[in-house]
C-alpha cells in the first residue's frame, strides 16, 4: 500500500469529487474493513464466548485477536488492559463513574482543561452534581494549547484525577501527555487521556505515555461505528468496581450476592459489538501496513501546507497556532458565519464542520460562538487543501469580501 494513491482504498472516493475534511468527526472506512464486516456477517456470524459450537469458538478467537492487535498497537502491557466500549464517550463515563464511586468525596477536585470536548467534561460534571466534587479548568494559552505550567498551577492537595485531551479537536494542539503523567504521578494523581484525536494520528505507546487511562474512538481510526476502547492500567481495572452489569461479566450469581468475572470480561457486560470488534483488526492492520511514521509525516506536511495556504488567504483567521499540532485546523472569516461557510463549501463537495465542535468552554473562553474546522485523514491530499481554499474564496465572493 502506498500513501500517494491511498484514496482508492476508500470506496467513498470512487467516482466522486468529495473533499472530506471532517475526519476529526468520523473517518471514512477502507475497503478491507468494510469487507471484513461483510464476510463476518455473511459466513462466520455468531455471538462470542458463551456457546461451544464451532461458529462461536471461531468468533471468540477473532474477537480476542483484535484485543491482542490493539494491545500490541498501543503497546499496553497486557491484553487485559484493553476494554471494548461503545466509544470514547462511554470509556470516559466508565472511568468517571467507577473512579468517582470508589475514590471521590465532597470537595475533591478533578482537573480538566479549557480545551476539553464535552465528553471529557459532562461525565465529571455528574460527579459534581451527585457527590459535590469540584471541576477545575487548566487555562488555554495564546497558542490554543494547554501548557504543563498551566496544569501545574491548578494542582493542589485536593486534586484526585487529571483528565486531559491528547489532541485538541479544535486547534489540533498536541498536549505533552508524557510530561503530564510524570508531573501527576509525582503527586500521586492518576491521569486520564482523551485519546480521540491522538489515536488516529500519533504513535501510541501506553507504557511510554504512562497515563492511567486512555480513551479511543475506533470510528475515528478507520474503524466501524459504535466501537471504542478504554485502555487502563491493570491495577485500576482490578480495583475499580464494574460499570454496566449483565451477562458475561459475572463469576457467580446468587440471590443474595454476585461476584464478577476476571479482566477484561468484568467490564464487558452483555452482548458486545462482535462484528465491529472483529473488523477493527483490519483497521489496525491498515494503519500498520502504511506505518504510523509515514502517516504522521504525510499529515504533518499536509497540515503545514494548509496553514500556509490559509494564512495567506485574506480575511481568514486561524484559531490557535500550537507548536505541536496534529490534523485539525479551525478558522473564522470576518463577516461570514462559520455555518454559512460550511454550507457554501458543501456545494463544492468540500465537507468541513462548523460550530463549537462540542467544545463550548473553549469557544466561550475565546469569545467566539463558532468556528469552521477542516480536519485531515490519511486520504487527504494537497489538492484537497487547494479545493478548500478556492471554495473559501467563493464564500468571500458571495459575501462580497476581498
Amino acid at each position, binding site marked *: 500500500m502506498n500513501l500517494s494513491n491511498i484514496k482508492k482504498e476508500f470506496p467513498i472516493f470512487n467516482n466522486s469529487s468529495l473533499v472530506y475534511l471532517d475526519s476529526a468527526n468520523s473517518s471514512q472506512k477502507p475497503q478491507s474493513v468494510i469487507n471484513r464486516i461483510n464476510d463476518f456477517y455473511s459466513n462466520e456470524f455468531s455471538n462470542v464466548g458463551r456457546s461451544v459450537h464451532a461458529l462461536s469458538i471461531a468468533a471468540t478467537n477473532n474477537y480476542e485477536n483484535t484485543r491482542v492487535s490493539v494491545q500490541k498497537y498501543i503497546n499496553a502491557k497486557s491484553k487485559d488492559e484493553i476494554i471494548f466500549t461503545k466509544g470514547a464517550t462511554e470509556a470516559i463515563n466508565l472511568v468517571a463513574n467507577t473512579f468517582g464511586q470508589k475514590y471521590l468525596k465532597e470537595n475533591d477536585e478533578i482537573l480538566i482543561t479549557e480545551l476539553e470536548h464535552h465528553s471529557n467534561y459532562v461525565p465529571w460534571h455528574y460527579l459534581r452534581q451527585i457527590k459535590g466534587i469540584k471541576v477545575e479548568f487548566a487555562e488555554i494559552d495564546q497558542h490554543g494549547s494547554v501548557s504543563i505550567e498551566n496544569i501545574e498551577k491548578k494542582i493542589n492537595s485536593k486534586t484526585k484525577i487529571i483528565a486531559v485531551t491528547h489532541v485538541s479537536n479544535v486547534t489540533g494542539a498536541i498536549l505533552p501527555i508524557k510530561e503530564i503523567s510524570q508531573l501527576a504521578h509525582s503527586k500521586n494523581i492518576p491521569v486520564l487521556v482523551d485519546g480521540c484525536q491522538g489515536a488516529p494520528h500519533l504513535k501510541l505507546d501506553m507504557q511510554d505515555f504512562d497515563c492511567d487511562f486512555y480513551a479511543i474512538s475506533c470510528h475515528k481510526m478507520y474503524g466501524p461505528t459504535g466501537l471504542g476502547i478504554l485502555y487502563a492500567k491493570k491495577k485500576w481495572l482490578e480495583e475499580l468496581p464494574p460499570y454496566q452489569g449483565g451477562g458475561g461479566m459475572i463469576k457467580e450469581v446468587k440471590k443474595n450476592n454476585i461476584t464478577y468475572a476476571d479482566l477484561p470480561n468484568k467490564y464487558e457486560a452483555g452482548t458486545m459489538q462482535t462484528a465491529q470488534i472483529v473488523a477493527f483488526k483490519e483497521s489496525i492492520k491498515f494503519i500498520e501496513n502504511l506505518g504510523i511514521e509515514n502517516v504522521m509525516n504525510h499529515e504533518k506536511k499536509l497540515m503545514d501546507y494548509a496553514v500556509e495556504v490559509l494564512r495567506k488567504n485574506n480575511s481568514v483567521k486561524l484559531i490557535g497556532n500550537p507548536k505541536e499540532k496534529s490534523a485539525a485546523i479551525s478558522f473564522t472569516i470576518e*463577516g*461570514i*458565519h*462559520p*455555518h*454559512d461557510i460550511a*454550507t*457554501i463549501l458543501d*456545494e463544492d463537495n468540500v465537507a468541513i464542520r*462548523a*460550530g*463549537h465542535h462540542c467544545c*463550548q468552554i473553549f*469557544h466561550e473562553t475565546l469569545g467566539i*460562538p*463558532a468556528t469552521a474546522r477542516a480536519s485531515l485523514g490519511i486520504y487527504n491530499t494537497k489538492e484537497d487543501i487547494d479545493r478548500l481554499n478556492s471554495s473559501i474564496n467563493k464564500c468571500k465572493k*458571495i*459575501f*462580497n469580501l476581498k
Partner: protein
Amino acid sequence: MNTKELYQEIILEHGKNPRNLRKTENFNKDAKGHNPLCGDIVHIYLKLNEKKKLEDISFEGSGCAISMASASIMTDLVKGKEENEVKEIINDFLGMIKINPELKSKNLKDDEKTKLMCLSGVKQYPMRVKCATLSWHTLISAIDNKKEEINTEKFD
C-alpha cells in the same frame, strides 16, 4: 440546489445590516432563543399595547447570515400588526419553511410575501432550517410569556 438561491442579495444585505437590531425601550414582553449547533443567539423584545397591537419589536443577538436576515425581515414585517395577525403570519412562515410551497396568509401583502419567500431556499438545507426559524420560535415564546429559553437542538 445552488447556494446562490440560498444566499440571495436580500438575505446577504439583511444579514449584514439587520433592521431593528436594538433593544425596545419600555418593552413589556421578551424571550431568548439559542441554536446550540451554530451558536446563534437571539433576544426578542416586544411592546404590545392595550389593544394587543405590536407597537414595537426589536432584537439583539448574533448568528449566521440566515438567522440574522430572518430576524431582521421578521421584525420588519410584523411591526405594527395585531397579536393574532402576527401569530397567523408565524404559522404561515413555519409551514412554508417546512412543507408548504407558498405563503397563504391574508395578513401579508404580496411584496411582503415575496420578501419572506427569499428565505425559502433554506428548505433544501435541513440543518439550516433551524437558523431560519429560531427568531420566529422565539417570537412565539415572547408573545406567550413562556419562561424557558427556546432551543433548536431538536431534530425536526
